[in-house]
């Protein structure tokens, strides 16, 4: 357990980090800034899915669907209702997250009772359905997409959202709620015989993951300023899934690390891509997946966290 002092120190470090960030974020190149923001959004997406699939063990293939709900809901509010004020932006992000969470709840309640791979199929179908509905919704631009979304998302907003999301998940994992998630992943029958209402905790996990996806979607929409339904297809869900598989299902720091790597790696290979005219992203994802499965089937960190490793022992909590 953290000592009182250490907890103070952690918040101090976080505070200093944000202050430094607010000074430098205008001085780094727009390109790097955008990559950092995208990393942050991917960190939230990956950790949200990790909560559902890595920690609670419920395979979901529709994370992009919840992201789309958050993106569209918040963008619609910003464009047609509130305008670009910061406070309105904050409320719109939360509205996007809540609507996505609500859909997660509605979808999860009946399907999480089912066993096995049903959830994977239902979530895949759900996210495709969301995409098709958006394609046909003229009020949000249909296939043409929704342009002129205020460009509110900056590094500070993103860093704040990432920090709060990670603290939220980390603290949840330090409670009986998080332990119930793990118990369900490990063995549903044993979890029940320990008095855990498995449907209830699956729904809590699923709803929280969907909420985080909605938040990430909202940040994403206000970063890109333009969204269309095809952004939120199956490939996007797959991308997020790869992140948590790569990082190690169930590991917070693993998912975070993998989200950063998988944001920067395709960019590093962009010159090669321009010469050869091949989209390397999918090739990278597939080959990474194959290499991982052959060499480290449990992901970069497995179920452990960065601070569980000896070399990081200095940061280990007492």
């Amino acid at each position, binding site marked *: 357990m953290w000592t009182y002092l250490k907890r103070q120190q952690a918040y101090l470090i976080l505070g200093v980090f944000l202050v430094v960030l607010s000074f430098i974020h205008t001085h780094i190149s727009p390109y790097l800034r955008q990559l950092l923001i995208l990393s942050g959004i991917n960190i939230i997406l990956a950790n949200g899915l990790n909560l559902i699939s890595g920690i609670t063990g419920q395979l979901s293939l529709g994370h992009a669907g919840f992201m789309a709900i958050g993106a569209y809901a918040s963008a619609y509010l910003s464009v047609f209702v509130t305008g670009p004020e910061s406070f309105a932006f904050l409320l719109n992000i939360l509205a996007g997250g809540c609507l996505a969470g609500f859909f997660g709840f509605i979808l999860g309640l009946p399907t999480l009772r089912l066993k096995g791979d049903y959830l994977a199929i239902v979530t895949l179908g759900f996210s495709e359905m969301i995409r098709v509905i958006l394609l046909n919704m003229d009020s949000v631009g249909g296939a043409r997409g929704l342009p002129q979304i205020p460009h509110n998302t900056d590094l500070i907003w993103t860093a704040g959202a990432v920090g709060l999301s990670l603290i939220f998940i980390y603290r949840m994992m330090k*409670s009986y709620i998080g332990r*119930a998630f*793990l118990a369900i992943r490990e*063995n549903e029958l*044993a979890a*029940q015989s320990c*008095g855990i209402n498995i449907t209830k905790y699956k729904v809590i996990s699923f709803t929280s993951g969907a909420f985080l996806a909605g938040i990430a979607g909202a940040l994403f929409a206000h970063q890109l300023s333009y969204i269309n339904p095809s952004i939120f297809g199956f490939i996007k869900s797959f991308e997020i899934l790869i992140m948590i598989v790569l990082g190690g299902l169930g590991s917070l720091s693993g998912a975070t690390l993998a989200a950063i790597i998988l944001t920067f790696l395709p960019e590093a290979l962009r010159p090669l891509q321009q010469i050869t005219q091949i989209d390397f992203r999918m090739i990278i994802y597939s080959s990474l997946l194959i290499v991982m499965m052959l060499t480290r089937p449990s992901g970069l960190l497995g179920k452990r966290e960065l601070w569980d490793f000896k070399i990081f022992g200095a940061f280990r909590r007492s």
Partner: protein
Amino acid sequence: MMSQPAEAILKVDNLSIAFGGLQVLMNVDFSVYSNEIVSLIGPNGAGKTTVFNIISGLYRPTSGSILFHSKNLTGMHPHRISNIGITRTFQNIRLFKDLTVLDNVIIAKHFAFCYKLLGSLFYTPAYVEEEAKAEKDALELLAVFGLAERAHDISKNLPYGEQRKLEIVRALASGVKILLLDEPAAGMNNAETSALLKLIHHIRDTFKITVLLIEHDMKLVMKISDRIIVLHHGEVIADGTPSQIRNNPHVVEAYLGNPT
């Protein structure tokens, strides 16, 4: 059975269940009294585990019911049955394999936590207190069973016998009143088995609980049981003290005559 109190703590009332065309249990009827060690024995496939599956809420019987202190449990969710105080172990061990020994036990204390999610987010006094108490209680319980040293090991790395023991500790941690043990001695050698039987006696006496035990090795069962119920092809063919069972002609014919 003069000494038995009038009211059974657990009553299995005329239980029948069929899977498709297969009649697995037929009018199974028996009672368990407070603080008893009762063994459910019978050849493989007799339906013993199925009785446990129904008591713990995993299966719904075709007819009949389960009464706990005269309260009908039939159709209740498994987690609620655990919360009421009936907890089982499994014939094939079901630990939370990738979690530590300590976490396995703390998870079973799920019922003991009252704080809300916000409590954990903001580190409220209630959170700190409840978590500390759960950890302390779990460590104490592990110490009683000689597993304290192993508390921070990943549970799948324990030797087989200790895994079985941990499953029992986990059941005790959940505030159990009736402990259902499904072949706890399976896969153990003679020395381990007799140690386990002593342990079961010890648990009954110190934790003041009732034990219902499945074991298909009759010789072992004779030693620790207050009462034995014999199941054969889904029917109860005998119910009595070890000496009554030993001399029961039906049992001798159905069971002893055909050793497994």
